[in-house]
C-alpha cells in the first residue's frame, strides 16, 4: 500500500524544465503582435466604411437603385417587415424547418455513422456510394424533392437534412474509429470490456470530433432550407427573397439577407455555448 510522502518528490516536481513547458504561450505565433485595441477599433470602423462607400455609390447614381438600394431603405424595409408583422410568419417557417432539418440530419448522421464505425462490411460496401452522394451537388435535387414530397415543409427539411448530414456523419465515423493504438492497449491492459471502451474512449473521442462539425452542419441546414424555399413553398425567408426580387424590391431582399445573417450568427453562438458547456471540445 502506498502512503503519501509529499516530501519525497518535491525536488523533481519543481524542475525548471517543467515550468518552462507547463504554460502554453501565444508568443510562438508566426506573425508579429498588434495591440488589442487596434483590432477592436478596426472591427467597428469596417462596417461604417462599408456603409459610407455604399451610400456614396448610391448617391453617385453609378448603378441603378434596383441593383443597390439606399442603406436607409434597407433599414426601413427591415423595420416595416418586422413591425408590421408580415415577416414573422416567414421567419418562423425558416427557423422551424432549419431546426427540423438539423435534427433529422444529426440523428441520421449519428445512427449511420455508428453503423459504419461498427461494421466493416457496411463501411466497405457502402462507402463508395456515400462518397458519390457527398461529392454530388445536393441542391440540384431540390426541384425533384418538391415534386416528390409536395409543396411545404417536407422538401425543405429533406434538403436541409441531407446537407446537415455529411459533416456530422464523417466526424462521427472518424471520431469512433480514430483512437490511438496506445489508448486501445491501455483499455485492454486494464481489462476494459467493449462497452467501457465505448463509454470512456470512443464516444468522448467522437464528441470531440462532432462538436466542431455542428457549426458547418447548422449552416448547411439553413442553406438547404433556403434553397427549398426558393424552389417551391409559400412560406419562409427564401420564399420572401424570391418574391421581393420578382417585384424588384431590392431593399427588401437586402433586409431579408440581414435577417439570415442574424439567424446564422445566432446558431453559431448557440452551438459554441453548448460546446463550452461540455468539455469535449478539448
Amino acid at each position, binding site marked *: 500500500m502506498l502512503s*503519501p510522502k509529499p516530501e519525497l*518528490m*518535491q525536488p*523533481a516536481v519543481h524542475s525548471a*524544465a517543467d515550468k518552462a513547458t507547463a504554460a502554453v504561450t501565444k508568443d510562438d505565433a508566426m506573425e508579429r503582435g498588434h495591440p488589442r485595441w487596434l483590432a477592436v477599433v478596426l472591427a467597428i470602423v469596417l462596417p461604417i466604411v462599408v456603409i459610407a462607400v455604399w451610400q456614396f455609390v448610391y448617391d453617385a447614381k453609378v448603378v441603378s437603385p434596383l441593383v443597390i438600394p439606399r442603406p436607409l431603405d434597407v433599414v426601413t424595409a427591415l423595420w416595416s417587415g418586422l413591425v408590421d408583422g408580415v415577416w414573422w410568419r416567414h421567419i418562423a417557417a425558416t427557423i422551424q424547418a432549419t431546426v427540423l432539418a438539423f435534427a433529422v440530419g444529426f440523428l441520421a448522421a449519428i445512427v449511420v455513422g455508428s453503423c459504419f464505425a461498427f461494421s466493416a462490411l457496411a463501411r466497405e460496401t457502402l462507402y463508395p456510394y456515400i462518397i458519390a452522394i457527398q461529392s454530388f451537388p445536393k441542391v440540384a435535387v431540390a426541384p425533384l424533392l418538391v415534386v416528390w414530397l409536395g409543396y411545404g415543409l417536407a422538401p425543405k427539411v429533406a434538403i436541409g437534412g441531407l446537407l446537415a448530414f455529411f459533416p456530422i456523419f464523417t466526424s462521427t465515423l472518424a471520431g469512433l474509429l480514430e483512437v490511438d493504438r*496506445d489508448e486501445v492497449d491501455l483499455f485492454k491492459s486494464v481489462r476494459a470490456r467493449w462497452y467501457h471502451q465505448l463509454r470512456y474512449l470512443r464516444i468522448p473521442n467522437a464528441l470531440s470530433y462532432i462538436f466542431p462539425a455542428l457549426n458547418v452542419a447548422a449552416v448547411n441546414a439553413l442553406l438547404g432550407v433556403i434553397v427549398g424555399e426558393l424552389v417551391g413553398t409559400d412560406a419562409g425567408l427564401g420564399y420572401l427573397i424570391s418574391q421581393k426580387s420578382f417585384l424588384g424590391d431590392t431593399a427588401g431582399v437586402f433586409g431579408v439577407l440581414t435577417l439570415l445573417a442574424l439567424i446564422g450568427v445566432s446558431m453559431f453562438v448557440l452551438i459554441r455555448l453548448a460546446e463550452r458547456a461540455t*468539455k469535449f471540445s478539448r
Partner: protein
Amino acid sequence: MDRAITISGVDKTYVGRQGQAVPALSGMNLHIGAGEFVSLLGPSGCGKSTLLKIIAGLTRPSAGAIRIGADSVSGPSDFASLVFQKATLLRWRTILDNVLLHADIHGGRNPENIALARSLLDLVGLGAFTNAYPDELSGGMQQRAAIVRALMSRPELLLMDEPFGALDEFTREALNDMVLRLWEEERKTVIFVTHSVAEAVFLSDRIVIMGARPGRIITVMDVDLPRPRPENIRTAPEFYQLVAKVREVMGGTH
C-alpha cells in the same frame, strides 16, 4: 508466494504485408525475480516493446510461455500495469479523472480509491493539478500522471515502455530520480524498456541487452552500483565505467 517472472522459449512472428513471416522475437529466455528492476536495452526494432506487450498479456507469443509464479500469462491482469512512451491521457478528462479510469471500469469510485489517487498525485508533485486537463500540463507532468494511473490498480509489476523517451534530458533525469524513489519505497517488479544507456544503468539491477532482426537477448549485465542510489552517482567513475561497458557490448548489436 514467489511472483517471479519466467520467460521461456518465447518467439513472436508477425505476418508481413506480402504474407511472409517477420520474426520479431526469437528464443527469449529470462527470469526476473520479484521486486527486481530490469531494463530492456537495445536498438529500435529489437522487439523490446513486443516482449513487454507479451508480458502484459496484450499479445500472444507464437511459441513459448510467460509464467508469473506458477501461473501462465493468458491475458491482461491487475498483476501488471503499463506505462507508454506517450502519456496517453484522455484529453477530455481531468488529471484526477484520468487517474481514476481503473476505478471507473472496475467497481466505481469510492473514498478509498479517490484518497489513494490524491495521495499518489501529491507524491509525484501533481497535487495542485488534479482538476487540470492533460493539455495544460508539460510532457513530464503528463508522464507522472500516467505513472500514477498505472499504480492505481496496485500492480506488483510495472511495465514501462520508453516512458521518458520523448522528454528532454533534464526532465528525464528528474523523472528517473522519481521512479527510483518510488521503487525503493515499494519494491515492485519493474521492467523498463529504454534506448538510453545512462538511464538503464542508473535505474536497473540488471540490464538485458537485446539485438535486432530477429529480436534476441545478446547478454544480461548486472549493475553492481550500491542501493539506494544517490542522484550524484551519475557523475561517479564506476557509473561511467558501467556505461562504457554496456556501450561496448552494444557496439556489436548494430
